[in-house]
């Protein structure tokens, strides 16, 4: 296949996929307790619709989306709602509790204590002949099933597949790149369930009314490419992508496959493209054809310290400690340096084994103390490597000096809001400066400033 266009920059971090890519997907054993956060997606958190002590069935809706950019949440197993807390002002007994979320902050969550029976309670009817059903009904079904983007960003899919009036996306791009090192969940899914994925893709194509569909897969997964090509259907094309991080990032993926550049500050919809993850396509299939809501996902538990790394079908609400136990624990607890949800380039570092894995948790990666980077406060030596590797063509060296001097106005001018936070710049920095953290700080300041200006405008009238 012809080499496709590359985006500027990019790095080749340690692949680490050989640890787990040959392990087939295993089912996770049923656990005693599942802690389900109420905010597992971009947008407003869901509101619980169950009471304390209520018995629920597997797949039953336990929290409802509050507005359009929100998603429902379903129970991962049958059991009893055991989370409880007292409302601080009214004194009412609520069915919620707090747990440490993946970002380190406390989040509201529901706790289900399993009754061991795992009884199903799907309320959605399977739709076999979806080609003859109205698109709106299919979209409604996707919304009811609580499907969000499975690539890690967790944007509600029913919103993404429903572009506003006037926008007619003609290209649907399926992201099978999985550029993040160490993660192999999408790879195994492509190897084991290609037909379901393809059918899910066709459903999305039908809903969008797109003309072309590309499935982008990185070259380091030749077996997945072969398998997907074997099950191809009309209108879908598989494209090989060169192995480069962050190939799976939306803007870079669109450029590599279609030569279209997404303008800064705009969405891919502006260039008539929609990007969806391969796991989302699978979830869409299950929701429509089997009537199954989203309450489990494929997660890679990997890393050098893990005894038996592999890929599991985990239910949402599984804690990291339980997931590690499934993988046999760690070889030497003294050597473990970091536990990450996600991969090592963009994952979030955890400090508690009780943190639950949510719909967006594509992997649990453990790193040894000698594999991780120790950030320092050495000054920038202006070597220019970060400028070479930035996929958005920004200038991280100058921006980091501005951030350290707290010149957030300059940072906004130098386009910090377009930073992908991919980590390429920090990866190559010889001074080991915490560049991504500085840019996140800059972004939060810029957002605060914009918020204040918005409020000032509102106050004026």
């Amino acid at each position, binding site marked *: 296949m012809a080499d496709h266009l590359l985006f*500027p920059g990019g*790095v080749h*971090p340690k692949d680490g996929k050989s640890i787990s890519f040959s392990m087939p997907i295993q089912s996770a*054993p*049923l*656990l005693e307790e599942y802690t389900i956060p109420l905010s597992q997606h971009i947008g407003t958190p869901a509101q619980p619709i169950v009471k304390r002590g209520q018995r629920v069935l597997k797949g039953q809706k336990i929290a409802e989306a509050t507005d359009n950019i929100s998603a429902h949440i379903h129970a991962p197993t049958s059991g009893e709602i055991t989370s409880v807390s007292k409302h601080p002002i009214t004194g009412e007994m609520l069915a919620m509790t707090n747990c440490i979320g993946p970002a380190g902050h406390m989040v509201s969550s529901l706790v289900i204590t399993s009754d*061991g*029976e795992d009884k199903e309670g799907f309320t959605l009817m399977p739709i076999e002949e979806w080609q003859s059903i109205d698109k709106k009904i299919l979209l409604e079904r996707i919304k009811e099933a609580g499907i969000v983007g499975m690539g890690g960003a967790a944007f509600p899919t029913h919103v993404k597949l429903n572009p506003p009036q006037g926008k007619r996306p003609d290209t649907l791009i399926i992201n099978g790149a999985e550029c993040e090192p160490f993660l192999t969940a999408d790879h195994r899914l492509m190897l084991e369930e290609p037909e379901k994925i393809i059918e899910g893709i066709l459903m999305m194509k039908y809903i969008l009314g797109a003309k072309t569909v590309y499935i982008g897969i990185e070259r380091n997964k030749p077996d997945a490419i072969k398998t997907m090509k074997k099950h191809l259907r009309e209108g879908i094309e598989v494209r090989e992508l060169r192995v480069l991080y962050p190939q799976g990032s939306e803007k870079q993926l669109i450029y590599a496959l279609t030569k279209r550049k997404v*303008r*800064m*500050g705009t969405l891919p919809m502006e260039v008539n493209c929609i990007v969806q993850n391969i796991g989302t396509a699978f979830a869409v299939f299950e929701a429509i054809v089997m009537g199954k809501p989203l309450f489990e996902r494929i997660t890679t538990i990997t890393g050098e*310290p893990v*005894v038996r790394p592999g890929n599991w079908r985990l239910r949402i609400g599984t804690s990291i400690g339980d997931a*590690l*136990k*499934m993988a*046999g*624990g*760690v*070889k*030497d*607890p003294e050597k473990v*340096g*970091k*536990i990450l949800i996600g991969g*090592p*380039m*963009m*994952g979030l*570092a*955890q*400090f*508690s084994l009780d943190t639950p894995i949510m719909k967006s948790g594509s992997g649990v990666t453990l*790193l040894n*103390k000698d*594999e*991780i*980077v120790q950030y320092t406060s*050495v*000054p920038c*030596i*202006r070597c*220019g*490597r970060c*400028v*070479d590797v930035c996929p*958005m*063509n920004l*200038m991280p060296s*100058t921006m980091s000096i501005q951030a350290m001097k707290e010149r957030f106005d300059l940072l906004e001018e130098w*386009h910090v809001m*377009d930073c992908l936070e*991919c980590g390429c710049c920090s990866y190559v*920095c*010889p*001074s*080991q400066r*915490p560049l*991504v953290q500085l840019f*996140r700080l800059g972004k939060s300041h810029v957002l605060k400033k914009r918020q204040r200006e918005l409020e000032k405008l509102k106050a004026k009238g």
Partner: protein
Amino acid sequence: MSKEDKNIPDHKEILLPDASKLIVSSSPHLHDSGQVAKIMREVALAMLPLVVAAIWVFGLPAVRVLLLCTAFCLSFELISLKLLGKSLKPATDFSAVITGMLLAMNLDANAPWWICLIGSFIAIVVAKQLFGGLGYNPFNPALVARVGLLIGFPDIMTVWSPTTAAQKVSTIDAQSLATPLEIASQSTAAGKELLWDNYFDLFTGNISGCLGETSALAILVGGGYLILRRIIWWQIPFFYILTVAIITGLVNNFVPMATPDALFHILTGGLMIGAFFMATDMQTTPVTRKGGAIFAIGCGVITSVIRIWGAYPEGVSFAILFMNAFTPLIDKMTRVKPFGFWQGESK
């Protein structure tokens, strides 16, 4: 349904990590293991061929100058860090050693020890630590020291020792001690065209001058190694040497008496070492490759002008220092356009 699955072995104990010993930081959590000390060590390695060439051409005095300069530079770095109340850790990044070696390359083989001392002081304390240390200095420290010494002690800095080859000849006259560029400027002053016969000597380094002005061959080897290892950008030496070659070649073509030919200029003086080791110093040169190319072209123009029409026979140090001052402006002019930038973007 049993809670124990066949996946979990029940005979072996399952160990979990201790959560309080975990390290929490922002992403990314991997690194490509490039470090400042490593870069400096590679540069030192790349300078080894030049060091060997210098010792071959000038003998043991070259070793003495190298050791003195390196030792003084390291000591001044440690002393100034201590006096400024900073931690001594930055001294381990090897950059003082590189400055010391480069300074030695700018001195004559028989330079007095106190010249090494004053030069190291200017390079480390004045040009580097007083500005804030590594990463904050705007001018190349070794060149600041060289220019400082040149202006402060011109008689000592313009007298050259004989090469080991020249020492074997019984009569040593002033002519044999002059650098090729000095010979060239003399012949220009006399209105005669310079006809140089021994380009091989220029290439291997059997010529008079300071330690680093000798072997173009050694510098090419070292510089090529650095480019292959992606420590320095090829744009800077390439455009620097190309610009000098074009300008001097053109002038030599039309007015042969004004200056020798391009090849002569490339192989003599500090151009090779300047292009590969001084003009590529990261702190003092632009951050983008395009900026680096502009920087190199500017250096080339100024070097050629000084060599052809200026009072000094050698112009590399002044040229690089001059362009160092322009680096922030070049950085501003060569700001990279972000991916997806469009004209309607207001900022």
